[in-house]
């Protein structure tokens, strides 16, 4: 029984960074901007969180610094693609490459140093409940933040006027502009939110997942987050399903490899990807609904005619 809870906890830890980065990117893409720089923003968040926590001794300060770093890095992307109207795909890729390089440079002096862990919360009695106590009431703060983010984004997008405006811009930026909506300003805010989320996701990696700094420690998670957004057909709760599924199969295949069933390890390593794609394709097989949720102006540059 304790074993089940331990596995659940590792699954949550593996899923949380994907979930946070993906929910941020979901908002960005719903506004019609494709930011392929998630990986770069995430690794900048990871190195900033580690460095600030190391220097100040406070994991909390590290976490906030990571959020700021991710947002600042995304502001660069926003300036390039929204103000200078450069190509979004190329700019996003450049952001990722820049992030990987810059983080390696910043982090060089931190390699091998002991990290500061963001401690799990502890609520008397509740945390000690059998079976689910630690999963529900004994995890790190970023886990709870990630769930709040999903619920918050879902509420924002589908229940508030600002969310409606954001979806409208993603559907047809020309019409939105004609209505007098501030397309560029809204997109900047969305891009900054996406960057802040990616930064937070990075902080989770270097403060919770493995509290140390290793070069390139995001290991492609930013790309998985990007894919999750698409396969979840831009719906927040489906991103949650996708992220946990990916986390679960990742942990599951690690245990399977340890037990050694004679299956090739490469096949097992690819299982999380296959399983996630399969399930998300199945839940989004209603083509009409999927296409309705797809932001029509995704990736298209917007220049107001004046």
């Amino acid at each position, binding site marked *: 029984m304790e074993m089940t809870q331990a596995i659940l906890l590792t699954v949550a830890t593996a899923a949380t960074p994907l979930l946070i980065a993906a929910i941020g990117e979901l908002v960005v893409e719903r506004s019609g901007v494709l930011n392929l720089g998630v990986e770069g923003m995430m690794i900048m968040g990871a190195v900033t969180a580690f460095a600030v926590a190391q220097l100040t001794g406070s994991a909390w300060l590290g976490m906030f610094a990571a959020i700021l770093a991710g947002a600042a890095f995304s502001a660069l992307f926003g300036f390039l693609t929204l103000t200078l109207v450069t190509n979004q795909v190329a700019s996003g890729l450049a952001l990722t490459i820049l992030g990987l390089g810059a983080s390696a440079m910043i982090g060089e002096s931190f390699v091998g140093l002991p990290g500061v862990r963001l401690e799990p919360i502890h609520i008397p009695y509740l945390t000690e409940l059998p079976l689910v106590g630690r999963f529900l009431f004994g995890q790190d703060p970023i886990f709870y933040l990630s769930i709040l983010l999903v619920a918050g984004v879902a509420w924002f997008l589908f*229940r*508030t*006027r600002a969310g*409606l*405006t954001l*979806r*409208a811009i993603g*559907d*047809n930026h*020309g*019409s*939105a*502009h*004609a*209505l*007098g*909506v501030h397309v560029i300003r809204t997109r900047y805010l969305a891009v900054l939110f996406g960057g802040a989320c990616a930064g937070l996701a990075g902080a989770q990696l270097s403060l919770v997942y493995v509290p140390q700094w290793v070069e390139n420690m995001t290991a492609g998670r930013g790309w998985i987050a990007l894919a999750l957004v698409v396969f979840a057909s831009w719906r927040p709760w489906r991103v949650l399903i996708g992220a946990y599924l990916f986390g679960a199969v990742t942990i599951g295949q690690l245990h399977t490899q340890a037990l050694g069933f004679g299956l090739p390890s490469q096949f097992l390593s690819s299982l999380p990807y296959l399983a996630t794609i399969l399930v998300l394709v199945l839940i989004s097989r209603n*083509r*009409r609904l999927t*296409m*309705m*949720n*797809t932001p*029509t102006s995704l990736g298209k540059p917007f220049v107001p*005619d*004046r």
Partner: protein
Amino acid sequence: MSLTSTDQPLLDARRITKTFGSLVACDAIDLVIQPGEIHALLGENGAGKSTFVKMLFGSLQPVSGEIFWKGRPVSISSPAVARSLGIGMVFQHFSLFDSLTAAENIALSLDKSIPLSDIASRARDIGEAYGLPLDPDALVGDLSVGERQRIEIIRCLLQEPDLIILDEPTSVLTPQEADRLFVTLERLRAEGKSILYISHRLEEVKRLCDRATVLRHGKVVAHCDPRKETAASLARMMVGTDIRIVHRNPPKGGDGEARPLLEIAGLSQPPRGPFSTALRDMQLVLHAGEIVGIAGVAGNGQGEFFEAVSGEVLQIAPDIVRIGGIAAGRAGISRRRELGAAFVPEERLGHGAVPELPLTDNLFLSRYATDSGTFLRGGALKVLAQNALQSAVKRIAKTMDVRKSGENPDASALSGGNLQKFIIGRELDRKPAVLVVNQPTWGVDAGASAHIRQALIDLARSGSAVLIISQDLDELLEICDRIAVMNHGTLSEALPIGEVTLEKIGLMMGGADAGHEIAGGM
């Protein structure tokens, strides 16, 4: 134009000028709108009507000129400012969001103080009050063009404007839907609201409007009372010269003798996207020497039908489409062209022509399969024969009167009407046995339209079969020998022109069979 008149105009725009680069789109335009009048803004495509009203609505900024609103000078810097002054606009190309519901679309343009949850019921109330029924929870992408326009109008009315700008509102409506719109507009006028009505349909303007301002090439050429003018005199003001009248001689021989050149038998096709239309068991035969028109409101399957006939989408069985008697349902575009067919799609830029390529390349792209002997040389090397292409472009420009800057400009450098003449001329140059045209004169000025229509008639009379898909009923009645109606992906029987009336076609477009009662809606 006295400044101290007692009945102050609602809107007084003085010497409004707008330039795009070296093009003067609007040149010192004056326009005065009184409270409680329907004011027509007339002009051909490209005369500057849309540019002008965009400045009144704040989506564009004038380079010079002044606007007085209720006697006060104002600067309309954005649509939000226009709305707060009391100016509402219903766009020609609707500014709606396909993936949002009707209520969400309406909410987007309303005051932020109105809670989202109230909007559906308010929209329904105002719709009922003005005879514009609406389902607030329907997705806009699923609605017909007429229903979308209703949303636009309700959205505009909910802002309680004093001036409503309508940009070509009837161009997408059936005659019956247009009649219903006029009733709504007259009701609004009776309530003291002013309407700026943009159109190039003269009969409508004569029937509805109190005053008219006519634009030509960005300048005001006349202020007049349309009810005192004739359609011909208004047309002369718009165009500057008399419009050439299209001459339609009757087809030679009886239908029985003519050879069928295009046969469509049992064409069915599932919808291909979330907002596309399914085609259901369509039947049509075109004979040599005749022009058949397909009427219908946009979005009833015309685009899908064109793609199926042109071979952009293949059929499940070869004998569903026969060209010149040969089964071509599984053949691609090039093969269908080789069988003698030619196609002109609706969208000029991007579908009919590549905007950033010169005319010679655009010519080659549609004719490399059928005329490889003329336009390619060097045997297996297949080098472009630039001289042959150049002279073909010159020939087409001459016969179709294509006005272009330079020898061989990019397609995007031509105006809409000239590019359309070129694209149709490119296909006519081949003397195709079958020509299928979708919206031949959409957004084309009157002079060019007349030229295109005459060319289509001439092609048919020389022994080809011509199929025209159009939403312009007047055009179809002018040039077709038979007319069929497309509605919700079904195609009616093609009626000989002698049996067709505007009213009958209108009813069929709305879903009723010819000679039967109107069947209920969807």
